[in-house]
Every structure is written in structure tokens, then in C-alpha cells.
């Protein structure tokens, strides 16, 4: 009897403990990070996921391009019924604005967290030939995203200097909340990330093949990391960001050196270049060839169709160009002329800007050039140089401006003694205003300069309350470090 009991107990126990493996099953409801980030494909899909998310309407699909940011600088006519009306009035505490701003804040920080998840795991594939590319892109993106947040939510550096509270900087995927740092501290961390990315990306395929080429060989397993580098945070994007960062830091000397270095590199490779007028008219209307870094937006037509409608118009959404009573003076008068390539290429005499009209499929399939949102373009580098030479050498500055004007089919401006810093600065600002229509660039540029915002309904004086988007309430309440100034 006793032996029977003992045998029974032993059988029972062994059968249960042999089930250890059995109990470690996983639901395949989700794709678990530990399973995905094990090879190149997993990492490149995770990266693609970040870019995809950045292209959503709450970020570069709309709000940070033609949406909220460009509403505020007055490119579009906004009436009382319009869903952007509170934003147009800088009423950041209205429910809709508040949600939009919270969406931008958390959207950018989520992308940062996603980069950090990749960076925390990437050393698992150290031996992979694409390790450098993956890590470099993720580091560069992390710096880019932080700079974007600083530009939008940080202080007016021109007015307050570098030592007031800016934003939190996240250098790891830990769930630890980071406190708010000063702009200076943020720039230092950005610099670190960008310098590391610069080294990692030194063999970026964009250098040899250009921004649009596909480096995949027929028959190989598709590798998105070497296809169309212009829509990845590539080597040139890192160089541009280094210049942009120095520009925002107020270190214009360094900015000029970095911008010049980038232009020299591009001059050799022509990987990114000015578009030829013939390419632009009726073809590459978004000047994609000039994008040092662009975001590919697969559902571009859906993102834009309500706002630049070709058919039914929803009056509370559509964004008609504020042309006849406002932009016409910018493009066709004063510093502009109607020969401007942009006026014709972007269809500026119609109610809605043609630049963003939903791309239609052609017989040869769709044209990928029409699906890119511009994040950093070539003229910006010239504009940085113009700005840098304002205090040093007006003629050199004007030369750089003229390079852009030439590319846009505007007459060159002749240098003379009459040129003052103010006049060049005004010409520069007008050029920037003309260049970035619908690209969400101008608002933070005004902020960088701490400059009046020109609008058809009256100019808006620079003000911290306008230029510093409010930190979302959730962040203020949940981040213990918010009260700390550094």
C-alpha cells in the first residue's frame, strides 16, 4: 500500500515539474520585442515603424507641416467656423488646441522612446554589416526629435539665453521620468548623439548612390536600409542637424562651418541638389530632390485630401491659401517676383495650394516623389549661412541667398554699399517665408529670430506665450522635475 502511494506521488510530481517548458507559452496576439529585435530585419522594421509614426497626422503628416504650425503663421485663410480657429488665435488652452499640442509632445517623445528601445537592443547584432546604419539612424533621430521639441516647447533662446528650462532629454528606454533640463544641457546631449551618429553613418550608401537609389540587388532579400536613403535619417541629415543645432544654440560661427562642410560634401556627391525648373513644373512639385531628410507618407492622399480638396469642400477643414490679400505681396511684389518657380510649380493662383493636392496615380504607378514630407531641405543650409554672415560679411551672405534665388528663378540681388544687415535680414526672412509654404518651418524660424509674425489679419508681436507651446498639463502634473529650472 505504502509503495503505491509513493509511486503515485512520484509520478505526479515528475509529471508536473516536467511541464515547466509547457507553461512558458506565449500568446501570439502581439509581436514581442524580445522576439523581433534579434536580426537586421526586425530592427529595420522597428525603424520603419518610427518613421511611419512620425508621418501620422498628429506630427509631420499634418500638424507639424501644413497644419497647426502653418495655420499660425497665416499662410491659410481661417474663419470662425474653422477647426483651426483657436490655433489661429493662439488659444492654446482651447480643448482642440490642447489636444493637438499634447499629441505633438507625446508623439515626438514616443518616437524618442522607440529609438531608445532600438538603441538598448542594437548591440545584440553588433556583427551585422548594417549595425552602424541602424544605430546611427536611431541616434540621429533621437537628437532630431529632441531638437524639434526644444524648438517648439523650449524657451526663446534669443531672448532668454541658454540657461532657462527647456525640455527633458531621454537617453535610454528606462521608464524613469527625466526632469526638465536647460537648453544648454539639451544641446550638449544632442551634440553627443549627433557626433556619434556622424561617425556611425560615415559609410552611408547615400554618399555613393544618392538620396533616391535602391541599393538592393535583384533576387536578394529586400533590405529597406539601403533603399531611398533620403527618407532615412542619413549621413547628410546628421550634418545638417549639426548645423541647425549650432544655429539654434546661437553659435552662428560653428553653424556656418558645419553648413559649409555639408555643402562641400554635397557639392562632391550631388546626392542632394537643387531641382531644375524643368523637373519641377508639373512633375516634382514638392522639390523632393532637395530633401536632405524627408519622411515618406504612404497615405499622403488621405492625409491631405480634406485640407487641400479637389472635390467636395468641408469649410471647417479646408485650408485655402491666403493669397490675394496677403501672400501675393510676398511672392509677386517687394522682394519677390512672379517669375518665382514656386508660384508656378505650386499652383499658387488657385484656391488651394496645388503642392499638396492629393497625388494621383499615373500610368506608371505612383511617383514616390509626391509622397515625401519635407523635414530638412537644401535651402535651409544656405539660409543658415546667410544668417551667419549677417554680422560678418554681407556680400558673402548675399551670395548664398542668391544661390537659392537662382534656383527659384528669382533675379539675383546685386551687392552694393547700400546693403545693410537689416536689409539682408529682411530679404532672408522673405525668402524663408516663400520657401517653406506648407512645410511647418516658419513658425519656429520666427521664434528663433524672436520676430513679429506677419499675417493678413494683422501682425503678431513676439511673445513667450505664443512662441513657447505650453507644456501639456499631464506633463506638468506627472513630471516632478517640471518645477526645476536649470
Amino acid at each position: 500500500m505504502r509503495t503505491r502511494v509513493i509511486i503515485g506521488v512520484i509520478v505526479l510530481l515528475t509529471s508536473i515539474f516536467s511541464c515547466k517548458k509547457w507553461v512558458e507559452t506565449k500568446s501570439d496576439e502581439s509581436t514581442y520585442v524580445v522576439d523581433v529585435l534579434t536580426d537586421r530585419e526586425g530592427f529595420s522594421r522597428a525603424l520603419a515603424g518610427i518613421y511611419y509614426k512620425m508621418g501620422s497626422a498628429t506630427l509631420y503628416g499634418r500638424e507639424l507641416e501644413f497644419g497647426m504650425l502653418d495655420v499660425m503663421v497665416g499662410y491659410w485663410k481661417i474663419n470662425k467656423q474653422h477647426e483651426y480657429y483657436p490655433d489661429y488665435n493662439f488659444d492654446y488652452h482651447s480643448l482642440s488646441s490642447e489636444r493637438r499640442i499634447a499629441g505633438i509632445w507625446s508623439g515626438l517623445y514616443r518616437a524618442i522612446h522607440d529609438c531608445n528601445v532600438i538603441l538598448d537592443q542594437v548591440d545584440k547584432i553588433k556583427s551585422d554589416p548594417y549595425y552602424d546604419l541602424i544605430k546611427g539612424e536611431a541616434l540621429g533621430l533621437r537628437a532630431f526629435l529632441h531638437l524639434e521639441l526644444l524648438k517648439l516647447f523650449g524657451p526663446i533662446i534669443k531672448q532668454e539665453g541658454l540657461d532657462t528650462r527647456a525640455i527633458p532629454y531621454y537617453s535610454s528606454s528606462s521608464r524613469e521620468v527625466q526632469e526638465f533640463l536647460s537648453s544648454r544641457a539639451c544641446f550638449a546631449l544632442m551634440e553627443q548623439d549627433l557626433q556619434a551618429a556622424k561617425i556611425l553613418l560615415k559609410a552611408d550608401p547615400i554618399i555613393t548612390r544618392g538620396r533616391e537609389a535602391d541599393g538592393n540587388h535583384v533576387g536578394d532579400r529586400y533590405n529597406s536600409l539601403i533603399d531611398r536613403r533620403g527618407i532615412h535619417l542619413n549621413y547628410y541629415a546628421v550634418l545638417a542637424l549639426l548645423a541647425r543645432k549650432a544655429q539654434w544654440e546661437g553659435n552662428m560661427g560653428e553653424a556656418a562651418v558645419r553648413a559649409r562642410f555639408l555643402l562641400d560634401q554635397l557639392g562632391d556627391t550631388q546626392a542632394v541638389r537643387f531641382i531644375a525648373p524643368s523637373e519641377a513644373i508639373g512633375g516634382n512639385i514638392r522639390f523632393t530632390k532637395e530633401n536632405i531628410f524627408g519622411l515618406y507618407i504612404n497615405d499622403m492622399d488621405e492625409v491631405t485630401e480634406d485640407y487641400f480638396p479637389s472635390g467636395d469642400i468641408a469649410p471647417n477643414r479646408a485650408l485655402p491659401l491666403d493669397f490675394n490679400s496677403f501672400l501675393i505681396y510676398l511672392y509677386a511684389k517687394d522682394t519677390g517676383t512672379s517669375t518665382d518657380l514656386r508660384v508656378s510649380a505650386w499652383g499658387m493662383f488657385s484656391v488651394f495650394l496645388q503642392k499638396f493636392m492629393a497625388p494621383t496615380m499615373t500610368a506608371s504607378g505612383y511617383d514616390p516623389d509626391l509622397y515625401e514630407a519635407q523635414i530638412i531641405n537644401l535651402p535651409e543650409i544656405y539660409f543658415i549661412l546667410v544668417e551667419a554672415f549677417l554680422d560678418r560679411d554681407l556680400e558673402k551672405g548675399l551670395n548664398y541667398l542668391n544661390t537659392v534665388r537662382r534656383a527659384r528663378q528669382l533675379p539675383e540681388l546685386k551687392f552694393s554699399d547700400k546693403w545693410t544687415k537689416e536689409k539682408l535680414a529682411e530679404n532672408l526672412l522673405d525668402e524663408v517665408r516663400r520657401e517653406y509654404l506648407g512645410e511647418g518651418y516658419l513658425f519656429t524660424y520666427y521664434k528663433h529670430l524672436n520676430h513679429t509674425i506677419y499675417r493678413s489679419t494683422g501682425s503678431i508681436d513676439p511673445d513667450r506665450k505664443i512662441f513657447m507651446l505650453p507644456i501639456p498639463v499631464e506633463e506638468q502634473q506627472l513630471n516632478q522635475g517640471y518645477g526645476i529650472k536649470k
Partner: protein
Amino acid sequence: MELKKNSFDFYLFISLKNGLRLIVLFFVFIFFTDQAAAQSITLKKDKSPLLEILREIQHQSKLDLFGDFDLLKGVKPFSIDVKNRDLAQVLHELSDGQPFSLSLYRDAIVIEAAKLRAKEEKTSKLLSGTVKDENGFPLENVNIRSLIPPYRAVTTQSDGSYQIRVDTDQELLFSMVGYEPLRLKLNGEIALHVQLKSQQQMMEEVLIHRGYDSRKPLSMTGASRSITRRELEQFNSNNIFTVIQSIDPTFHIDQNLFAGSNPNIIPDVTIRGINNVGEYAINSPLVILDGFEVSLERLYDLDINRIESITLLKDVSSTVLYGSRGGNGVLVVETRPGTAEKLTLSYDMRSTVTAVDVGDYHLMNAAEKLDFEKLAGVYTVTAGTFPPAEENIEQARLDNLYNRRKANMIRGVETDWLSQPTHSSLSLAHSIRAEGGVGRIRYGIQGNYNNLAGAMKGSGRRRIGSTFDLVYRKPQKILLRNNLTYLSNKAYQSPYGPFSRYAQMNPYQPLRNESGDLVRQYADESLEELQYNPLYDAGLPHRADEYATILTNNFSLEWNISPVLKLRSTAVLEKNTSKSEFYLSPLHSRFARADQDSIGQYSSGKGNGNGYSANVNITYFKTRKKHAFSTSLIGEVKSSSFKQDTRQLIGFTADLERSSLPKYAKSNQLVHRDIENRLLGVLFVGNYTYDQKYILDASYRMDGSSKFGENARYGNFWSLGLGYNLHQEHFFKRDWIQELRLFTNTGVNGTDAFLANMTLSSYVLSPGQVYYKEFGLSYFNEGNPDLHWPQIHSWSVGGTGKLFDGRIAFSYAYYSKVTDRMISLITVAPSVGLPNDSYFENMGKVQNRGFEAAATIKVMENSKKTLSWYLTASANRNQGKLIEISEALRQLNASNLVRTNEGLYKQTVYYEQGKSINNIKGVRSLGIDPASGQEIFQKINGRLTNEWDINDITVIGNREPKLFGNIHSAFNFRQFSLQAYFSYTLGGDIYNHTLADRVENSDPRLNTDIRAFYDRWRQPGDQAAFKDIRNVEKTGLTSRFVQRENTLQLSCLMINYDFLGERIKKYRLQRLRLNFSVNGLLRISTVKMERGLDYPFARTFNIGCMIQF
């Protein structure tokens, strides 16, 4: 000669005639299966009385000794010296030459007069028959012996049959371990069929089924409540939850303000408070149906007629058996197996009338509403909103509007919107059951159909079930049971949409236009909520159905390996499917303002699940003198998987015939889910009882679950319990005390309320998510690999008693539980960048303390016991509070300030150390200033202000009642019984949302509670409870809307009548029972608040009858 008596199936008894040593033979057939060893005796005695020697032999051989002891009296003392001698031989030697014979029967030594044997051969005859248990199962090895000389004994065979030679006036004793002995006097019968009652049945004692084992209530060391079929039958109700709550109020059903009496919403249920707080916390008890874990929904749909018993396990000494899953309490449900041998048919029919109860609504009539609108300024142009030139035009338009509506009202338009989507409905439930058996086999077949119509038109729940039970039983040896069950239910939602839509429509809005057609759109309404006639929407093609089917096979085995060893095992296989379909017509008013290409919605889902579980349970028990000891070792595995595909189509212009799929849709989404969970557990249970007085319980369980991260895959759970039956103590014995028992227990168990993705970070890959040519993985969920099982430490002390011959019975239990490592969804600052800004963390401690007290008094009973009246009252209290709050949890307060689309904050949990977890938050208010009609708030720092400030939010109320319970009155007169269950709650706070959302924050254009018209401030000096009638600003969370709630409810009133005996026998009926019951007949509350917002509450009237053939 060695006599191996055990090796023969047939045994021949030989009796020797004294002196002649002649063998007188007679044959008795006895069937043996026992395996006791051959007996041998070693004995040395000098000149001892024969009885003493026999007693010694009896002791050595452990045999019974019986017969005519008088025969031994005259016998001289004996000397004996034997070593390892065969017993039969010894007995033979002892009786040699004596006036008596000693013979061996199976387990007895029989003393009888030697001479009688030969004589009786002639006068006696052979009696035969069968012995069965109360369920008709043949009993094997029953001892049958004669009590009058000549003594004789036989045992029954495997089919329960026996044969014994008896005299005509013999008296027989039938006995067997575990059964009540039966004495019968013969009267010349030659066949006698006997039924033995098991001792449990005799004691009429309800066993506490704990799933893995069953216990007598007096051997428990914790609180529990068993509900028998007899109790359930009396309720005659469709809703099993309210039945359980009526019987034991610690089973708490959350009153769902929104869902009302919607038969398709399964209410939230808790036992002894809320152990886990937060959005994903699961506090519902574990449901074990025939040993298998099932969802609460399954219990909800279970046909009450199938239930044999329901046991609520509350204390850790029992719930620890379920380890990681038992922390919220356990409901153990056992279904009826087939038991009767004779073919029995029973039919149960219940008709239910559901009558809508909108007594909580007090809406304005057309005249009041128009006056209210006028006062609130609906018909006055607000200065500044229009250019001065247009102001007059607008005012004229508004005047016109008012006059037109007034004319309508005078003409008699007074639409009763609330009655439009509701109806009183009759539904029928049928349940039929057949059971019977042959030999050791019993079967039961049952089928039920119940189509329960809801209070809203077109809504209801249809349940169909059938079950087939097969039982093989060899009493005291083996029990095999197989149960095959098929269940299906269909939940269909009303096309009328949420009830709240009707409560906002204005009484002056006519239903139909002049030509008698339903109005689709009210042209002069500017507010979207009022513009469309919900009745028009209700008439459009519609579908909102869910189907589910479940096929389950339960197999269980009980095998008594030996008197001390028992093996039990269950194996369950389950397959379930679910299907859902939802269709919203493109013509529905919801799409009135949508783009033409995104109107119309269709979605369908299909799910498939499989599950199995098995356990093996070995129990060893031993009783020695006053010590009783039992121990069980149980191993368990459980696995379930579920696959689901859902498809959603949005955007098709043409309305469709039902169930035909649209060909084209703008958005076509497919989602696939695949979930797999596994659990394994090892359980050890030990129980020791001394002299039926002291009870010690110890249990330990280890669980491993696939849901957990690698860092915390296994959890350990334990409990210790002590019981003390005071009434068994000699020094305590009193005539008037029948039972007095104390118990205490402590231990740790857990709750299983979490998902795998709480521990694992994950990406999702959806088809549309492509970046250029690459699939983009989107970071979906932040996992926390360090997440641990939440632990619930609890202890409890209590007692039960029965006094004065059962005139008074009472029970009391006090408990304290602390949930440690509670799993909370923690919200972090958005800059951390987590999906949804949240992840799961073990944090915070919640404590629940409370007591449960109940007493039953027999108020009256007549001597014949045909009339009786019992009163039972129970009082309970539970206070849950946060005793340790982490910083992160405190921060949750900020993120919990969720704003609605109107910019108002919702009433959500507010975490504050030492405060109830069932609190109400808001800003302290001193009321409405009679001078200005504005509200006066008190800031945290004590200052008074007119401004509502989010930073002044604090805890302003506790929803947990001070006391709650039931009062139950049961009156029985012969076969008639009248019972009433009242339930009460005292002293809880409630945030009166009607005051907040309807009296103050409602748009004056919507219809609302009459208090918005009568009780709001109008002019300086008004002492009003509510702010200025013209003020359209939203009121934030304020203590002004917190009210103390006391309620009394007649939750159930029932009348039963049983027809018995001859009156129904002539119709060949065994039983006929009539029931009438009403649920929710009466409710008195100190708070006037609209209840049943999305679906109204309803009363149900049930008439039922049960017939058994």
C-alpha cells in the same frame, strides 16, 4: 491444514455437531473481494474464562464477536497455548465438546448453540433480496446478520443481492460503513429489498464543496456559504446573481447605473470588497463549475434547474486551494448528476413578465419645458453674438420658434418619449429533465430553452442548453461520471439605441408629421442630439447580435483504493465558438454629418476557443482513536487558447438587406487575435482533527502561469486554519447549545487578473502600416518583466452557533485583507514616451476590513410543524482603503482627471492614503450664494472663492455603505410558503449625476429633470440648491452633488406551493409545485437620481410550475 479463506470466491461453511463431530452442512453464497490476510493466532492463557480468551482472539484477529453470549456462561475456564495457529482451527478446538459452536464468518466470530443448527434446517427458509443505496445503486459487502438465534451472517454480492436462511420471525440487521444501520423484523417474507441511507444523508447535513474536496461545515476553519437546490428552486428566478445576493449579501452586485436591467450586460460582482484598483483590475470571484474554471458569464447563463449546489468560499483557508486565482473569493458550482433509478421526468416552466420601471425619471412636461427654456434664455439673443443689424432678425426667428412650439403644446403635443423604446414583455423558460438507471449506471438528460425579452424593444437573451450525464457507481468503491454539455446563447441588442437619447427629447417634439409618418429630422432644432428622431433610426435595418456556443465534456473519477486512500481525478475538454454581427444603416442619424463615403458600418467577428484541464488528487486519511488525519496531494494543469478574427467595414452608401455583405467599403479592417494561457499547480492540503473538537488546516499551493514574465513565473500560496467546536467540550455542554464553533485562519493567495502583455513589451504589425516598402512595426505596449503576482494576505476570525433546538442560529466573521503588490496601470509623464503613457506596476497596498453577521430566529412553529415562520437578518460592512500609496499612484490622480468632450472632468478614482478606494472626488462647496446664484467653493487652504480650481480637488465622499445586508422572512404553512427578501444599504455616499449632468450641466434645449426648472436660482434672495437658471457654464466636480444614500429594496417576493400525496398521485405525478415571484418590486432611496441611463431598470414577475412524473 492451512485454511485460506480469502482465496475463494465461494465459500463453504461447515458447522460441526458437537460430540459427534458430525458436519452439518448448509450452503451460503458469499462473494468476497476483500484482501485481508489469513488469520493466525498466538496465544497463551492459563485457566482463563472462555470469554476472555475469545476477546483476546478477537483483538488479535480484529474480528467481530457476536452471538449468544449466555451460552458461554456455564463453561469452565480454559487453558490454551498456541503459536501461529490457524484461527479456524483454534476456534474449532475451543468449541470442541461444548454446548455451543464457534464459527467464522467473513469478519466475525459467531457464537451459537450447537444443537440449533440441525433443527433449523427444517423450519427455516431462504430469504433473498437486494440492498441498494438511496439512489438505487446496488451496495456490495453489506453485512446482514440475524439478531435472534440462530445467528447467521452474510454479505451482499456485487449486484447488491443476498440470500440468507431465516426463521419466520427473525430480525435482521443491515449494516455497512458510511451508511445508517437498518434493523428489520421479518414477517414471513421470502424476498426483501432494502435501501440503506448514507450517513451524510441521515444527518441532513450540507457538505461544503470546495471543488477539490468536500467538507462538513463543522470541520471548516473559515467562512463559507452553501446554497442548495432546494433554496434555488424557491426563487424561481432567471437571474442567478440576484438569487445568490439575496441569500448571501457579501456577494455584491454592482448596481450598474448605465446598463440597468439589460439582460446582456453581465454585472460586476465582488465578494468582500475590491482587492485591486485601477482600470484593468479584476475583482470578480473565480467560478468553478464541476471542477472547471468558467467565466462569470457562463454562470449567468446556466439553467438554474441544473444546479445542485453553489458554495461561496470567502476565507483564505478554502480559497487558497485556487492559489493564484482564488484571491477574490471562489464560487463552486456543482451540477445535478442523474441519481434516480426509476425513470423520472420533470418539467419546469416559468413565464416572466418584464415591466419597465422608469420611476426614477422625473422629466418636464411640454409646458414646464417651454417655460424653462424661456427662463434659461434659449429664446433670447445673447448680446454680441450677432452684428447689431442681424440681432433683430435673429430675435424674431427665436420668437417665432417659441410661438410655434407653444402652439404645438396647446394643440396637445405631449410626446412621452420614455415609453417609446420600452415595453412590457412576456418570456417563457422551459426546462425538461429525465433521469433513470439500470444497475450501477445512472443517466440524466436535460434540456432547457429560455428566451428572455428585455425591457427595451428588440433586446433580449436567448439561452439553449442540453446536457447528458452518465454515472457509474460502485458504492464505497468507485464513481465514474461523465457529463457532456452543450450550451448556446444569443444576445441581441435593441435597435432603439441608448435609452438616454429618449430622456433628452423634448415633449413638444411630435413623433409624427401631419401625414402620420415618423418625423426623421426636426428642421427647427439646432442641437444635433435633438435634430433626429431616434424612432426613425430604430426602424432602419439593424443588427447587433452575439452568439456563443460551448461544448464541454467533464469526466471525473473517484476511486477508493483502500479504506485509507482515495484517488480523484477530473478531466475537462472544452470547445467554444463565438460570433458577432453588428450593422448600422448608412441612413442612421449618427452618419448625418459624416462624409458620404464613410457612412454605414458593418462589423463581424468570429472566435474559436479550446481548453482542457485535468487534475489528479490523492487523499490519504486515517482515524485512530480520537485523532483524525487527512492529507491530499493535488496536481493540476490547465490550458486555454482563443483565436479571434474581426472584420470591420465602414462606408457603403446603399442600405442593405440584413446579413448581405456590402461589396465595397471605404475602410475594410481585419484584426486577428490569438491568445494562449497555461497554468499548472501543485497543491497540498492537510487536515487534522482531534476528538471532533480541535481542527487544524494547512494548505500550500504553487502555481506557474504563462501570463507571467520569466522573472516571476511561479508563485507560492499558503494558509493555516484553526477550528474549535466548543459544543463538544464536556465542560461546555449545555442543553440549549446545539452548536458553538469558533474558527480563525490566515494565509496568502493571489488574483490572476492580468494579461501576458503586462510583462512583455510588444510591437504590432498592421497591414496598412508601411513605410515606403517596409512594414513598420509600431511599438504597442510597454511590458514590465519584473511584475509579480499580487498577493492578498488575509486573516479572519469567526464563529457559528445554533441555540435552543435551532430556534436561533447565528454566524459571525471578521476579516482583514491586504492586497500587496497590487497591479496598477501606472500613468507616467507623456515625455517618457510609453504607448498610452502607461505600464503595469506592482504598487500600492489596499486593505479591506469588514464583518459579516447573520442571525436566524424561528419566530413561531406549531407542534405539528406544519406552520413556521423564520426571520433572518444580516449585517455586513466592508471598508477598503489605500494604506500605502506610492508616488506613482499619487500621480495617477492627475492623469485620472479625464476630461469629456464638453471639457468636464469625470468622476474617477482619487488615490489618497488612508482614504477609501471607493471615494468620490471634487471641490468642497458651501452651496449656492442666494445673492448671486453662484456657487461658493472652499479652497484646500480654506479660503472661499467663486472659481472652481482643479487644484482644490480632494476626497469628498465614500461610496462604501456603513452597513448593508438583507432581511429575509420565510413563512411556511403546510405546503405553502411565502418569502420576502429585503436588502438595505445605509450610510454610503453617492455622486448624484442627475444633479450634475441633468439639472445643471445640461444644455437647456434638452429635456431634463424637473428640478432644473423648479429648484434652480432665479433671483437674488432665492435659497436654491442649484445655480442660476440662466447660467450655462459647466459645473465642475463639487461636493454639492454628493448625497448620503440609504436604500431599502424588496428585492424578491415569492410564493410557493407544493402539491403532495394522494391529490396528485391520481394524476400519476410525483410532485407538482407552483411558484410566483416578483423581483425589484419596491425600492426606497433617500437619493433622487435617474437610474438605468442606457437601458432602463425593470421589474420581473415570474409564474412557474414544476411537474415531476
